[in-house]
């Protein structure tokens, strides 16, 4: 996709940009906070573009990783993961992530998911760390201290109560990409359904990229401002791209595509398979519209559209 819709041309303060422009805001070596949770609201089109642009040495973070992370790891863009878990729900595990972990080709900073959320929260609040009582006595903490993140966790005794505490260090991602249902041109971004750690991750990050299914006027945002999770003043770029989380789901927009998720899981079983997938569905199509053609076009997309009552 190249140009954004013409009806927004000339909007004052517009942050609308192309997918390629937005992906170029992520630099080699950056820490990117991802948007998805297993097979919901993943930043798929954005990840495709990072792969096409050949970004390198990324750090990815999320409470629960999804397919976007698996693709980026499978394409060899990633050197470090900061996470609590990840899967494609019943479709299967994140095979590229797990393979990279087993082979030692990524450093896996592996926490409890709440610890990841606490690290974002501290980053968002501008405080140096958060104390917590998760991970005490566990091998999660032992490995973080001894192997993967000795600078990011500490144990101490609470100065007020004397209780044992774990301190997790604030995390400030270079970029957070957040996949949302609605945004205006200024970046006011509304998420329908549960928000997992999207709010804290975005507010912790230096730069925020919003990828929206639908562009709306600010008047629409102002009709239900309680849905706005990220205020426009924190957003650096807005990309409007329908079906940009496919094959993962976007609540009230479209369901996950189980045919395609099954196909991906079968391909991702081997390194060769995932290379073939990246060639067939990312490099050869070359852009998001051509990708949507390749996965079945309008017939498939119509089939995935969410029911108005159910939301899926």
């Amino acid at each position, binding site marked *: 996709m190249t140009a954004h819709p013409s009806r927004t041309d000339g909007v004052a303060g517009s942050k609308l940009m192309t997918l390629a422009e937005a992906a170029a805001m992520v630099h080699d070596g950056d820490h990117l906070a991802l948007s*998805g*949770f*297993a*097979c*919901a609201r993943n930043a798929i089109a954005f990840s495709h573009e990072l792969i096409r642009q050949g970004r390198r040495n990324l750090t990815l973070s999320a*409470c*629960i990783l*999804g397919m976007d992370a698996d693709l980026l790891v499978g394409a060899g863009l990633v050197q470090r993961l900061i*996470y*609590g*878990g*990840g*899967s494609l*729900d*019943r*479709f299967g*595990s*994140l095979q590229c992530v*797990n*393979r990279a*972990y*087993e082979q030692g080709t990524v450093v896996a900073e*592996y926490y*409890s*998911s*709440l*610890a990841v*959320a*606490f690290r974002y*929260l501290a980053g968002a609040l501008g405080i140096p760390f958060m104390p*917590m*009582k*998760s*991970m*005490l*006595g*566990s*091998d*999660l903490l032992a490995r973080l201290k001894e192997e993967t993140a000795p600078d990011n966790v500490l144990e101490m005794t609470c100065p007020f109560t004397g*209780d*044992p*505490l774990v301190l997790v260090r604030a995390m400030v991602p270079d970029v957070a990409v957040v996949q949302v249902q609605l945004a205006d041109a200024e970046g006011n971004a509304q998420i329908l*359904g*549960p*928000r*997992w*750690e*999207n*709010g*804290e991750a975005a507010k912790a990050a230096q730069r925020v990229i919003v990828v929206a299914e639908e562009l709306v006027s600010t008047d629409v945002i102002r009709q239900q401002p309680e849905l706005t999770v990220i205020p426009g003043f924190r957003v650096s770029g807005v990309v409007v791209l329908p079906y940009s989380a496919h094959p*993962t*789901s976007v*609540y009230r927009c479209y*369901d*996950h595509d*189980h045919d395609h998720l099954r196909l991906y899981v079968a391909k991702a079983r081997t390194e060769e398979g995932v290379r073939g997938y990246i060639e067939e569905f990312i490099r050869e199509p070359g852009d998001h519209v051509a990708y949507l053609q390749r996965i079945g076009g309008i017939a498939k997309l119509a089939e995935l559209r*969410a029911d108005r009552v*159910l*939301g*899926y």
Partner: protein
Amino acid sequence: MRAQTEAPEFTTSELMVVVGARELKDGQLVFAGLGIPQIAVALAQRTHAPRLIVLNEIGLVDPHQIELGVGNADPRHWYRAAVFSSFLDIVGMVGHRGLVDVGFLGALEIDEFGNNNSSEVQRDDGGIRRFGGGGGANDIASHAKSTIMIIRHEARKLVERLVHNTSPGFLTGGDARRRAGLPGRGPSRVITDKALFTFDTTVGRIKLLSIHPGITHEDVRVSTGFPLEIPPGVPETGPPTQEEVRLIREELDPTRMYTSAI
């Protein structure tokens, strides 16, 4: 052995659902993921615990599904929730706060102290096989008032030494859990496809509570990788009632996604 005619025919997973449901009380706040825990909770809500509230880490309070989804992230799983919020709101301000009564945990391995590995196992060639990771499991295990673990009963799963202690139970036993500063009271039950276990909290060690119908003491012994005392008079797990089986088959898991024969 119980006479075959006394109870309806049931699958092992249906029995595990029923055993899970019986552990739950009305009004409790419960963390329950996909599969047997989700069906167990729904069964409890339909029978003795109509005001039991389910929480989900993705940011949900009290959903009422009309279709089973593929996972926590499937909007089928979110249907008619009372709250849509965030990870921090649920796992933090309910879980870390210490308000969760029961957390269900799956496991790749557990040991006799109820420590739980949901991260990785050793391959036969000595390498590591990585799984998805625990997600919020450690948070639940650390803070919930009780946890119920569900695991397939095999000697390579009920082990003497875990590959990775992802979610601590009683650590090395005795008062090790309390000394480590973990606020939750620790594991309370383990439900396998062969037996039901509890924990002796004074020594922080697993204890057999009942053996499922049709399973011999020898089956349990050889399928358990840590030393286990099997008292001669250990009772048989009570079978499901006709109504429980009907609810599971006709209303809670009509497509038999989680409760078909193993």
